[in-house]
């Protein structure tokens, strides 16, 4: 891929419709994010070399740009993303794609804790496992995990969908609101107010669509639906208030 290497602290000379290349071994994340926020012009593609676990790579992007992160990302990669399509060709640190509202984030390796936390929209795909608290407090994002998710996943999840092709850890969907979780493998335990419900035709269609978008090959008929019992929605004055 022919790219234009961007010199540190320079105004970025991207070729029209071309690719900008940032090398984080020589350039700062601040320069990269400044370019992504203010200097994209008509750049269609950005490659980030040697990410080496740096924090906050490509946070706050609001443009229909394709971003390839060629290695492992640290905390908060692709946070608050709008419209951009990011691929992390490695593992992601804590809180990847947190607060995303649209676009697509694809983690080719595994994702650390709190993947897709509090995100309003867009699609997060994790090819490997996602660690604890995947989709915590999510508000509309779709998350598809090729592997398993850790304990407390979908904790207080308000809206959106999670598809888990592997297993789920303890306390899945604790204090769940209206988000729905689909799990193919074993569920170690449900959190408070979460339970398994029968799959409907709409659920099979939803799972099939999400798997297709994530490019995973599984039979939707193998998935279970987990949703809220809604018993925590209203205060129960008759319950023993013991702690």
């Amino acid at each position, binding site marked *: 891929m022919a790219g234009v290497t961007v010199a540190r602290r320079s105004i970025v000379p991207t070729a029209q419709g071309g690719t900008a290349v940032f090398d984080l071994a020589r350039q700062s994340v601040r320069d990269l994010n400044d370019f992504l926020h203010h200097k994209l012009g008509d750049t269609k593609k950005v490659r980030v070399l040697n990410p*080496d*676990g740096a924090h906050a790579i490509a946070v706050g992007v609001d443009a229909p740009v394709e971003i390839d992160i060629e290695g*492992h990302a640290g*905390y908060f990669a692709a946070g608050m993303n709008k419209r951009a399509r990011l691929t992390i060709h490695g*593992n992601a640190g804590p809180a990847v794609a947190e607060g995303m509202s649209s676009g697509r984030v694809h983690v080719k390796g595994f994702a650390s*804790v709190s993947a897709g936390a509090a995100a309003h929209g867009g699609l997060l795909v994790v090819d490997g496992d996602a*660690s604890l608290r995947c989709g915590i407090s999510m508000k509309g994002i779709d998350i598809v995990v090729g592997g398993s998710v*850790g304990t407390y996943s979908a904790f207080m999840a308000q809206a959106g969908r999670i598809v888990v092709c592997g297993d789920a850890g303890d306390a899945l969907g604790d204090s769940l609101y209206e988000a729905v979780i689909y799990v193919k493998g074993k569920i170690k335990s449900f959190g408070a107010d979460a339970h398994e419900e029968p799959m409907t035709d709409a659920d099979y269609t939803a799972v099939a669509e999400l798997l297709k978008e994530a490019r995973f090959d599984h039979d939707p008929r193998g998935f279970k639906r987990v949703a809220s019992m809604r018993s925590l929605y209203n205060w129960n004055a008759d319950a023993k208030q013991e702690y």
Partner: protein
Amino acid sequence: MCGIVGLLVKNPRMRDRLGEMMVPMLVGMTERGPDSAGMAVFTKPLAAKHRKLSLYAGDGEFDWAGFEKKAKQALKGELSLAVQANHAVMETSVDPVKARQWVHDRYPELHVLSVGRSIDLYKDTGMPAEVAKRYGFEKLRGSHLVGHTRMATESAVTPAHAHPFTAGEDFCLVHNGSLSNPFSIRRKLEPLGIHFDTDNDTEAACRFLEWRMREGDDLKAALQKGFQELDGFYTFLMGTRDELALVRDAFSCKPAVVAETDDYVAISSEFRSLAHLPGVKHASLFEPKPEEMYVWRV
């Protein structure tokens, strides 16, 4: 917040490069722990009756030559001293309890940081790069090491409060997180005659685990009891004469990542301080799972 680093070289040829490989790991965790740093390195064990004591003299001038002379006269055994700034490693054939007591009684200003046949320990306040330079970390040799960068959250910033903590012989522990019951652990151990050097929460975990092992538990059994008794947030990395061990609490809020190749096992709070290691791009990488024990033997 704190940073932890650990390295165990499987390839014996890499033992001479242990310090050189580790310094960028430690310095890479500066943002997680800029106030103090420490390093325990495990070398080839001394003969069965010999011990080494890592000694720390604090900020002031210290007459190490005078100390060595008096120690040789008083302790009546083989004794040698290797001095590095305000730190020295004393090797001796004298009974370690006796040697330690003598240091404590005659030189109360000296701190005994570690005792064992294999462990050397350095810790001090300051930025990790400064501490590494002060004690020549890049020249350290050995089979495995445990390091820490500290951002204090619950007790004072002093050399004694820096990690690693030690208890007994050839055992050390570093901690990222905070314990919520260190004082109840302490109230349990002190009546058994276990002495604490500081009011730091990590010291309680270190002394608890060493106490369990002295009572006959192996490392894994001790850690299992630790899961039951130690409450709070933690990623612990521990070193013994021939092992590195890593555990995380049930919530796993404190990060850790492991990179393993044919040549080494490297552990850090974050990948960014492993990124320089040879062959790391093709290493097997994983995040340790909550309440699972990871133990690597030399």
